[in-house]
């Protein structure tokens, strides 16, 4: 049977999802259609989206997805596929900055819930999951992001407080965040000297500056300096010098979610390019009837379906309690390459129209690099997989 290419037809039916997943997809889709899609162009041009969107997203359960009920989340009956559906449906709006900005707590909060003392969890998680407070994750530094084990920001214990000095950069939601989950050096060199510290952004000695960038305009990205910032010792997340494992654990889930987004962005490119190719006529027939163009579309579909199957398989393993580190690293690379390829081909098919601002493909094209670099660059992912394969 003929099935035209659109966002839904380019997704393989999943054996891992059931009724509650479809119900959740319906909710997120309606939310995106009503509260997000009509405004994304305007928000991106303006360089920000309304803060109130966090609260609205919390009301439908999007912000609390996967987090314990005790802190205001929803975890009963929820699995990793509900969360991937959220990533996918948000990506359908074709604006990565929105996901980065709206869902920053997805990287900022887990270290606290995984490692933090109960009092800290109770203080931080509920307002974040209600969409009232924002939290950012600060790992990357001006001297480097890939080589996490060598980060330099230092926290020195003095009685009941830590004194923090250093600088973080490329921090998503860094400008707006109320709380910062900061990777700091509390011990000696290397991975064994790292800890996580929760730093309230309004503490004396914290200064931040926005960074203009190639894409993701509506999400703020900041450089953050810490000059003799005093932080109470009870803000230490987990045991001292045990932070590295937390950083790594966080990366695995971030990679899965970024892969889901990247593949969904590729589907958006494919759907928009297919629509255009059917409607636009050149040399007396629709673009889609020229072999060069229809094969581009078929190649895009091929790469999307392959990446999608890989994603579902990795997610299924995660759901069953396995963390396939190498596979997740390769999946992220597969996904960003798929997005890159589809964004490129869609731009070619749209021709000049794709180069004009205001369409989804144009924006996604500008967002390819951050997906291939952030959360573990392609090079680092491949090297990680090589190491995990004994090379």
């Amino acid at each position: 049977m003929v099935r035209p290419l659109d966002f839904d037809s380019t997704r393989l039916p999943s054996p891992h999802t059931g009724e509650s997943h479809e119900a959740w997809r319906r909710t997120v889709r309606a939310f995106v259609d009503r509260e997000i899609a009509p405004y994304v162009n305007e928000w991106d041009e303006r360089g920000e989206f309304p803060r109130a969107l966090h609260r609205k997203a919390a009301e439908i359960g999007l912000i609390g997805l996967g987090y314990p009920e005790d802190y205001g989340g929803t975890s009963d009956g929820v699995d990793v596929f509900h969360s991937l559906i959220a990533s996918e449906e948000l990506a359908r709006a074709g604006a990565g900055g929105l996901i980065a900005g709206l869902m920053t707590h997805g990287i900022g909060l887990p270290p606290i819930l995984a490692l933090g003392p109960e009092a800290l969890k109770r203080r931080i998680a509920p307002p974040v999951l209600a969409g009232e407070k924002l939290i950012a994750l600060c790992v990357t530094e001006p001297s480097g992001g890939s080589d996490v084990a060598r980060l330099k920001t230092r926290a020195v214990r003095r009685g009941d407080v830590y004194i923090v000095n250093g600088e973080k950069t490329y921090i998503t939601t860094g400008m707006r965040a109320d709380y910062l989950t900061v990777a700091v050096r509390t011990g000696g060199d290397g991975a064994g000297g790292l800890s996580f510290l929760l730093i309230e952004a309004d503490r004396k000695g914290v200064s931040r500056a926005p960074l203009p960038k190639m894409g993701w305009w509506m999400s703020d990205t900041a450089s953050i300096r810490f000059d003799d910032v005093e932080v109470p010792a009870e803000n230490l997340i987990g045991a001292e010098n045990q932070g590295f494992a937390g950083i790594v654990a966080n990366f695995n889930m971030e990679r899965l979610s970024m892969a889901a987004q990247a593949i969904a962005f590729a589907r958006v490119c494919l759907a928009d390019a297919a629509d255009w190719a059917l409607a636009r006529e050149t040399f007396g027939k629709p673009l889609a009837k020229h072999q060069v163009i229809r094969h581009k579309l078929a190649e895009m579909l091929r790469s999307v379906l392959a990446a999608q199957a890989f994603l579902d398989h990795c997610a299924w393993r995660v759901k069953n309690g396995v963390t396939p580190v190498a596979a997740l690293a390769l999946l992220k690379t597969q996904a960003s390459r798929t997005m890159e390829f589809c964004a490129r081909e869609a731009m070619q098919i749209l021709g000049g129209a794709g180069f004009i601002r205001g369409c989804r493909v144009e924006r996604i094209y500008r967002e390819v690099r951050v997906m291939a670099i952030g959360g573990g660059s392609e090079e680092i992912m491949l090297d990680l997989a090589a190491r995990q394969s004994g090379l």
Partner: protein
Amino acid sequence: MKLLVPVKRVIDYNVKVRVKSDQSGVDLANVKMSMNPFDEIAVEEAVRMKEAGTAQEIVVVSIGPEKAQDQIRQALAMGADRGLLVKTEAETEPLGVATLLKAIVEEEKPDLVIMGKQAIDDDCNQTGQMLAALLGWPQGTFASKIEKKDGEIHVTREIDGGLQTVSLKLPAVVTTDLRLNEPRYASLPNIMKAKKKPLDVKDPSDYGVDLKPRLEVLKVTEPPKREGGVKVETVAELVDKLKNEAGVL
């Protein structure tokens, strides 16, 4: 009050509907299905009545295939209390559905039935009226506002040329129009809670009702393709075309 809200599983309003090549109907294979949008409005209204304290219980009923449970669950996630599916794979028609709903009403004894004014698949706009007639209950159709006042239901109706308000003695049937409300999203926690709410599955024969179609479909065709318009130079030319080509003057 106890409320009964019938909901129908229909092709999603976003889907580009395609006619089957043998013209026997529209293609339903692999097509996204959803709750009829007017029924979603009916569910929302019922939930608001419950939240306002004017209603105590909301029962949602669907007459349709096994998969119509998805739509019932959605209504439960929006805030309804209990679901009932009367399972049939047959194409449903207004009179059959109204007859079955009457039997369900007699069993459930609701004070008010709130339902969509029509389903977006066949656009019949008949079931609510037929149900009211079969029950001998008052009806308020095309509601854009529903209020309970002094034991009566005041329904503001959208009619040609304006609004009309009717007051109905209970029990009654109300059908919803587009502007009655904006349905809420089923939140994730409520989707999970809805899984645990009761949902009965029955058969039309349990109610002694035969849903056999009474209508025969001869042929389903695509609407004629819209042809490009023409520009007229003068009013006289327009009048001439309306008279002699369109034959509407």
